[in-house]
């Protein structure tokens, strides 16, 4: 469902160019739970952001469900993010003034769902993450692990095809980290593809696929050769 061909990303500042991603080829299939590991600064977050269309890229191509994201308008990209992709950040990124319910409801609003449909989905997501009883709490009233579960609920409420998680347990102690991992596994078993950045070798082992990135290059047997029939060249 995710297919990346020869993708490169360069950060340019006035003084230096950073090659954050170099000629990456990657394919992630439906239903996979893939862990992405690598040293700090190796380009993990950059890759995730590119996959989440939060970041553009310089060369190569990125196909989501067989469709290139190149040349999509802001509106199309937003819709794509909204419908197909769920984000989970290391820092939760919840809106403090909002109740749990309102936080989870936010992306559903951009989708144009009716109030009833939003309610149904929010409640279901809250149920999934085990926080149904606290729908009117505010994030500050929750522990870190609970907050991350709210963020997960927000990510899955729109029933995305793929969850992109950037060190979702990075800010949590080991007990809470385990709870969050179990939750992600449960979501994966329900059919949602997950790509997760992690520093924790245990977590990486629990995933059913392990992708390593070093210095902007993928470095393991999970590299896929681009198929000859696929367009390769930028702008194709």
């Amino acid at each position: 469902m995710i297919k990346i061909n020869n993708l490169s990303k360069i950060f340019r500042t006035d003084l230096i160019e950073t090659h954050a991603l170099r000629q990456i080829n990657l394919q992630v299939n439906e239903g996979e739970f893939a862990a992405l590991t690598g040293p700090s600064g190796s380009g993990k977050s950059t890759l995730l952001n590119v996959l989440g269309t939060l970041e553009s890229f310089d060369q190569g191509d990125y196909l989501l469900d067989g469709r290139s994201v190149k040349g999509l308008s802001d509106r199309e990209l937003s819709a794509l993010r909204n419908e197909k992709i769920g984000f989970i950040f290391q820092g939760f990124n919840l809106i403090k003034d909002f109740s749990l319910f309102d936080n989870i409801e936010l992306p559903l609003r951009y989708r144009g769902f009716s109030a009833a449909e939003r309610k149904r989905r929010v409640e279901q997501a809250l149920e999934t993450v085990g926080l149904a009883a606290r729908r009117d709490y505010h994030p500050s009233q929750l522990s870190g692990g609970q907050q991350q579960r709210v963020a997960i609920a927000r990510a899955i409420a729109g029933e995305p095809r793929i969850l992109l998680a950037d060190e979702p347990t990075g800010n949590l102690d080991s007990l809470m980290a385990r709870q969050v991992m179990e939750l992600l596994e449960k979501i994966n078993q329900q059919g949602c593809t997950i790509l997760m950045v992690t520093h924790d070798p245990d977590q990486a082992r629990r995933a059913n696929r392990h992708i390593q990135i070093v210095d902007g290059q993928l470095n393991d047997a999970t590299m896929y050769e681009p198929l000859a029939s696929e367009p390769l060249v930028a702008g194709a």
Partner: protein
Amino acid sequence: MEALLHNLKLSWFSIKRAPLPYALTLLILSLGLGTFFSNATLYYWMNRDPIPQKSATLFMARINSTPGDCTDCFEPPRVMSYMDMQKMSGSGIPSAEAAMFSSDAYAKTVENQQATPSQVELRVTQRDFFKLFDVPFLHGETWPDNKARMEVVISKNTALKFFSRTDVVGQEMLIDDKLYKVIGVLDDWAMLPRLYDVNGRRSAEPAEDIYIPLETAYDLAIQSNTQNSYFDVDWDGNMATYPQMARTNFANQLQFWVQLDSPEKVQQYQQFLKNLVADEKAAGRHTRPESNKLDNILDVQKAMRATNEQLDAFALVASLFLLVCVVNASHLSLNRYMANQYEFSLRRALGASRWQLQGQILADVLFSSVLAFAAALLFAQLGLWTINSLLPSTRALAGWDWQMVAVMALFVVLISYLVTLYPALKTSFSPLNQQLKQ
């Protein structure tokens, strides 16, 4: 609708997060707007067409008839003499014509003779005045001709003030201790600016209280309180001889207005004035060069050099001040948006398009507009009081009609949007990845 409410709620949250910077932004914005509005109000009233349905047909007529030999004096006197006015009237060309000047007096009712009289503003004029300027009557009507008669037309407020009712036709009043009969009561009427009386810059004042026939005023030596110019007049000051003196000398105090319903009529009346001056010259009068003026009512302020430069200067300063305030408010609002950048990026990551973010920004604008509008009206009212006390002659111009209020409201929304525009664009177009990194 539901989305709007949601966005308004979000705006409220973001205000609550940093109420002080927001209040400051709003204060600066509404100060600028308020100052601007108070000046714009005066400017609007001073420069509007007070009688659009017939302004094209109303003219003030003057001839260059002043004694003395001056070959390069082309500017006729601002006010006409009685003799010249008589010659300029009665041509049959205008569909209405009236000479006039303003004065003041003390008035009381006959029943209440013991009371201390109140000061009233007088308009000394002729029968056609009310027709010229579309003045509505509530009761009674104008004088049947231009002869002297002890009869007055009074304003509605004057009727209410002296008689506590409006239907007072036939009642009597003492004006400067002379007994007059009320023959007409006007309905509510205001002409702003009062372009029939730009002389002496009094056009911003309210309409007069009492209207007195011109001939009566000459008989009773009621004189103009605006401009009374005597040219080569040899008069001993004996009031008994005033009526005769004022009617036969260059004792100039009259503004003479005509209604000319078509360009042909204007042409004809101009020709009439030309012929008149030729006759006068032939008779050895009108020694100055011919220089007849027939100024349209909308040009009369300029022609009489009675435009209010102070007001123009104020308006300029207020516009500049608004500009400064807008720039400052925009800067403050940029800071506010930058502080909220994280939330905007988060929403984009959750799938809001830039377009959907505009909805949020519009809600912000709406919110600030309502608050800024209320505050700006307050400041504008304060500003008007200040200006009115600096320039008392503008006091009639302080009001707003609902159209002005609507225009001001629209203006506030526009300015608020302008103030938010740059910050909004900057926040919606900034790169997404950095903000969410923690």
